[in-house]
């Protein structure tokens, strides 16, 4: 058994964290720390890059290197860090606002280039920190503070987007499915090339209150009931599919990452500056 504790990756002196009761962000933070501990990566070999939002606060609680960027730009900063020093393990922690709404352009191009980064996208279907406005993942007809009668736009499917753009590893899970969450984080971090782990996460305060229930327990039950395995989802009727979402791994391939291709084509070797 590994004696490397997840506590080595957290700044517990900054707890209690700012997140609301029952917010899934803390569960993902815990799973992230366990994943890093089990992988045995030294905190100084890891850079956690964030943007803005409730989940954007996560870098305050990690004991790895941290880079807190502007809204939607976490992947742009992460790309720079990785290419500047390719020996580092670079992980971008983003919400749906950061990743595919304000930062949507960075997201598709990071996946297309297949940069060796891991994107952990907490999708709670709205902008929690600024008061529960709709984002690009808010489902059609869902209620938010800026769509009180229901959202007139359909939401992005983040995993399909990453797959179409060319990511090497694409998976979805939830904080209820916490063992798979930890394992998918480990797989994504180990994968060379662009990895996306989408975590459908409860926001009891806003999305939950308007569309599910404000109780943390009800939001966890919602995840338990709505999430089905990829294989089960594929055999569902279209009507049933609308009521559920698939969890598991959608893509796991080994297309050469950007850095490998760049060195090959330019016949150069860049180990990075220190």
């Amino acid at each position, binding site marked *: 058994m590994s004696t490397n504790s997840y506590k080595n990756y957290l700044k517990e002196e900054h707890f209690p964290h700012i997140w609301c009761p029952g917010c899934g962000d803390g569960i993902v933070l815990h*799973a992230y720390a366990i994943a890093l501990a089990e992988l045995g990566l030294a905190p100084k070999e890891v850079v956690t890059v964030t943007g803005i939002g409730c989940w954007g606060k996560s870098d305050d609680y990690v004991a790895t290197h941290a880079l807190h960027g502007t809204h939607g730009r976490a992947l742009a900063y992460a790309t720079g860090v990785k290419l500047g020093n390719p020996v580092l393990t670079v992980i971008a922690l983003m919400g749906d606002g950061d990743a595919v709404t304000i930062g949507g352009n960075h997201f598709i191009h990071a996946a297309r280039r297949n940069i060796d980064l891991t994107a952990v996208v907490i999708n709670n279907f709205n902008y929690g920190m600024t008061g529960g406005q709709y984002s690009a993942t808010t489902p059609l007809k869902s209620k938010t503070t800026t769509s009180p009668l229901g959202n007139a736009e359909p939401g992005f499917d983040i995993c399909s987007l990453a797959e179409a753009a060319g990511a090497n590893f694409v998976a979805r899970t939830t904080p209820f499915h916490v063992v798979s969450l930890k394992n998918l984080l480990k797989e994504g971090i180990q994968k060379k090339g662009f990895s996306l782990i989408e975590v459908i996460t409860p926001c009891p305060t806003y999305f939950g209150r308007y569309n599910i229930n404000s109780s*943390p327990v009800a939001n966890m039950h919602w995840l338990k009931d709505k999430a089905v395995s990829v294989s089960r989802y594929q055999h569902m009727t279209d009507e049933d599919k609308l009521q559920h979402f698939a969890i598991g791994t959608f893509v796991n391939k080994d297309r050469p990452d950007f850095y490998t291709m760049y060195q090959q084509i330019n016949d150069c070797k860049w180990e990075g500056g220190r």
Partner: protein
Amino acid sequence: MKAKEKIRISIDENLCKRCGICSEFCSEKVFLELDNGMPQVTVPENCIVCHLCDWRCPDLAITLEVIS
């Protein structure tokens, strides 16, 4: 699993935000939710050390220790 090991389950009252997730989802009903929302460890001897309460606690308030 490790049914005969002794387990100490502690809840940090300074971290717990009384969300109720631990009491609701523990398969062995180890916790009782008090009227004020705080979970209380009532039957630790039933714990199967699945760690799910610990990992699902949004506030990282639960610690499980195996006392051998």
